[in-house]
């Protein structure tokens, strides 16, 4: 009398990129125990190798459509495109961190391990087909980022950043979880497809469901830092190590946007008429408030924090527009924004004044004379943020606003472009400072760093390549969304 135990089919292929990142994280934990003590940069390179493998896996798996773990995880082009964005973000952040941590005397293995685990969480979130898994990814990512935000523990701003991020993040997670519970109550499932079926079948009139979705949106709004859920952004961006700021600005947003898009397209499409106005308002608020407050900032990191809020607003324009063009343009913009923002933070992170970090706009005065190439790179990143051709930022906005115009949201596009014009003012102020002003006191200098320079060059390549030949990647981004619209 033998009983056969049938194991549930575990298809690792579905979570291959996330698994690669997770395994790399574990390997780093082991390596961290080994000598030589005090030198940890090899961990960064192992981590980088893991990221490259995950990226290659994502490219090889392109086009596959599979679900696994009882439909909780899904491998499709949306997952893979988000993985590409997250992978680029993680890779750039690792490269930027190496010399930066050493200079700040904070080099330790935990940093790289946490980066890898945060990346794992992001990829899980992007490939989640179940609200519980979204939450799992969200928490894996967030917990790692809370610690990373406070990594320079001797600095008081770091403590503030970490604490604020954690407290507000915990609240947002609470909202998120409560939303999941309500939706489960209304539909009897946490699976996105089943929720979608229930919504189509008529559960959409259930107030429980609507409240549940509203609570989920609070959670997402927090992670992407859309107005009015943006309060943490500036303080966290300012207090966190600059490399971590770059990571929070790019990778975590890409993950949250991928999950949000999947939720909206798979589960909530029947309700589009209702939620679209909600996002319309969020987009306008985020663009306008982000840009207006950014004008008043003197600190580069705070300025880029508010600018990131504005950029989220632009991406929400694509969400409002919907369809293959709208969704594709959001994904494309995430990629563009990752290269641009990681590059901009990359240059800022190399900037030092008298041995300390230099993050005031005034610190960049005269940079063009002393470090013409670094100034040129930062100028190109800033122009891409403004949206001046032939940089990627222009093409990204072109697709976003194009999608909005096509779907008939002409006024949203007009508000968007007027915002872009207002935004030009504060980005150009940095260019003015670099090219047209003379430094006062000790001038800030660029610290030579091979890995940092490499990261900046890769980002620069991305910004220019996507600006001049955007078509192939935009087609990929569109093909990541189209299957969900069937």
């Amino acid at each position, binding site marked *: 009398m033998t009983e056969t135990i049938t194991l549930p089919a575990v298809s690792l292929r579905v979570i291959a990129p996330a698994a690669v990142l997770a395994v790399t994280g574990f390997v780093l934990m082991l390596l961290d125990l080994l000598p030589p003590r005090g030198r940890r940069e090899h961990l960064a390179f192992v981590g980088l190798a893991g990221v490259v493998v995950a990226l290659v896996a994502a490219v090889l798996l392109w086009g596959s459509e599979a679900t696994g773990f009882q439909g909780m995880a899904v491998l499709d082009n949306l997952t893979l495109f988000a993985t590409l964005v997250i992978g680029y973000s993680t890779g750039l952040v690792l490269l930027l961190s190496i010399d930066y941590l050493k200079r700040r005397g904070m080099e330790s293995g935990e940093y790289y391990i946490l980066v890898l685990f945060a990346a794992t969480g992001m990829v899980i979130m992007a490939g989640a087909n179940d609200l519980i898994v979204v939450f799992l990814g969200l928490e894996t990512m967030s917990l790692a980022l809370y610690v990373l935000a406070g990594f320079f523990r001797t600095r008081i701003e770091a403590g503030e950043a970490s604490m604020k991020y954690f407290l507000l993040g915990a609240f947002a997670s609470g909202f998120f979880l409560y939303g999941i519970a309500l939706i489960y109550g209304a539909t009897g499932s946490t699976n996105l497809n089943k929720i979608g079926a229930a919504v189509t079948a008529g559960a959409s009139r259930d107030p429980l469901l609507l409240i549940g979705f509203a609570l989920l949106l609070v959670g997402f709004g927090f992670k992407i830092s859309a107005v009015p859920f943006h309060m943490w952004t500036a303080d966290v961006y300012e207090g966190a190590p600059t490399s971590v700021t770059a990571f929070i600005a790019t990778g975590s947003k890409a993950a949250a946007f991928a999950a949000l898009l999947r939720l909206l397209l798979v589960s909530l499409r029947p309700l589009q008429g209702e939620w679209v106005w909600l996002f319309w308002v969020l987009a306008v608020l985020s663009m306008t408030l982000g840009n207006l407050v950014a004008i008043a900032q003197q600190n580069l990191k705070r300025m880029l924090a508010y600018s990131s809020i504005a950029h989220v607003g632009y991406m929400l324009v694509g969400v409002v527009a919907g369809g293959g063009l709208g969704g594709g343009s959001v994904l494309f913009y995430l990629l563009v924004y990752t290269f641009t923002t990681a590059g901009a933070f990359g240059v800022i992170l190399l900037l030092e004044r008298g041995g300390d970090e230099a993050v005031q706009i005034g610190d960049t005065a005269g940079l*063009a*004379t002393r470090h*013409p190439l670094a100034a040129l790179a930062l100028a190109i990143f800033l*122009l891409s943020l403004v949206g*001046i*051709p*032939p940089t990627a930022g*222009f093409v990204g906005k*072109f697709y976003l*606003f*194009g999608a909005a*115009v*096509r779907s008939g949201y*002409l006024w949203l*596009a*007009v508000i968007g*472009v*007027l915002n*872009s*014009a207002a935004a*030009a*003012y504060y980005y*150009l102020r940095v260019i*003015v400072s670099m*090219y*047209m*002003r003379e430094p006062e006191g000790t001038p800030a200098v660029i610290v030579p760093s091979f890995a940092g320079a490499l990261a900046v060059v890769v980002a620069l390549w991305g910004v220019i390549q996507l600006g001049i030949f*955007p*078509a192939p990647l*935009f*087609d990929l981004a569109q093909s990541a969304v189209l299957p969900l619209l069937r």
Partner: protein
Amino acid sequence: MSSVLSAVTFVPALGALAVFLLPRRAEGLVKVTAFLTSVVAFVASVPLFTGFNASTPDYQFVEQHAWMPTLGISYHLGVDGISLLLVLLTTFLMPLTLLASWHSVERRWKEFAITMLLLETGMLGVFVALDLFLFYIFWEAMLIPMYLIIGIWGGPNRVYAAIKFILYTLVGSLLMLVAILALYFQHGAATGVHTFDLPIVARWVVPGGLGQSLLFLAFALAFAIKVPMWPFHTWLPDAHVEAPTPGSVILAGVLLKMGTYGFLRFCMPLFPQASLAFAPWMFTLAVIGILYGAWVSTVQADIKKLVAYSSVSHLGFVVLGLFTLNQQGMVGGIIQMINHGLSTGALFLIVGMLYERRHTRLIADFGGLWKVVPALSAIFLIVTFSSIGLPGLNGFVGEFLILVGAFQVSRPLAVVATSGIIFAAVYMLWMYQRVIFGEVTREENRRLTDLSVREWAMLVPVLVFIVWIGVYPVSFTGKTEASVSALITQVQTKAAATVAAVGQ
């Protein structure tokens, strides 16, 4: 398919790359490389003029390559009678401008050369692009070099002027982007062909009424700011006064023409009904600009500011000519764009020469220069006459044609506009008299040196064209006539078709 246009457009960009690779210390080499690049671009553009078939309104030297085929975006270049002369004006002015920068630009010559050459590529691209997307790319990309030229190499208040310049232009051009997108999707929905290709879109009749008016206004705002038409002109005096001499020459000579070119290339063929409907408004604004620019010029104490405001007046004439929508007025408008580029460009060059010698531009600081620098004064006189529109010189041809055209459309406005020529004589000659004639009032002015060989080389080519256009304008107007009459026919038939479609 020839690639002359690509070559002309991108030679400066390649030159910029070459300069980028040169060492900073080799300033002489940088200057020579930049200058030779601009000369090569000019030489490369001459075959456009000689090989241009003036009997057809079609685009010539056309190049087209797929770029983003899924969106209907292609790399499509071509020139017709409307853009040909502007391309040549650009390539012609650039070497002169670089010569003018030789000593007047005192620092960061390498960066200066790169920016100027990239600016040239941007400007040429605007004139030759036949794809709305490509056009917009060049249109926006060109802003940054100009912004840097004003902001880095400009006068004391340069940062303010640079930011004002870019913000004004951005607001207009971003709204134009929305209009381009709206046009693209409307065209796609109506015809099933999604394309940014200008010749294809221009064949389609945009539905009349409010939609067409809004599209027209979005385009027209961008162009009106660029021209600049009154009341969108306030960035211009700041930009001109603060810009270094080469910046002013290019700004007046070429950049302002992009606005008027935009009206011809985009507003009129794409939105004919709205163009006709708004023509009286444009007419009125143009006449206000003519008078306002002239009056404000009269009271300026700074020569450069005077020339800057005179541009508002002159460009008013150009817009007046274009919106007559008749053959004389439009040909006059086009030729006047070239004239203004030549005369005002030369005026800014001369103002720059005076500034290099005396480090002031105030009229009151000069006086009696004829005795000290007769050659400079004589050329200044010819250019002044050209700017006023003395018969026999280029300015007369353009203004005469424009007024002939305007007279057929609105007699009262044409009469008022004509008074602008008289005011031009007042402010130009009064300024000239105070600067050049009379006794030498200041000791510093006694030791000024006359034109150097380099300065002769800058001014003589301009004088040649000032006289050539004045005496035998047909060499130039002849190139534009076929395109202009085709454009007028297009506007009228399409406007009639729009009205018919609305009437159904």
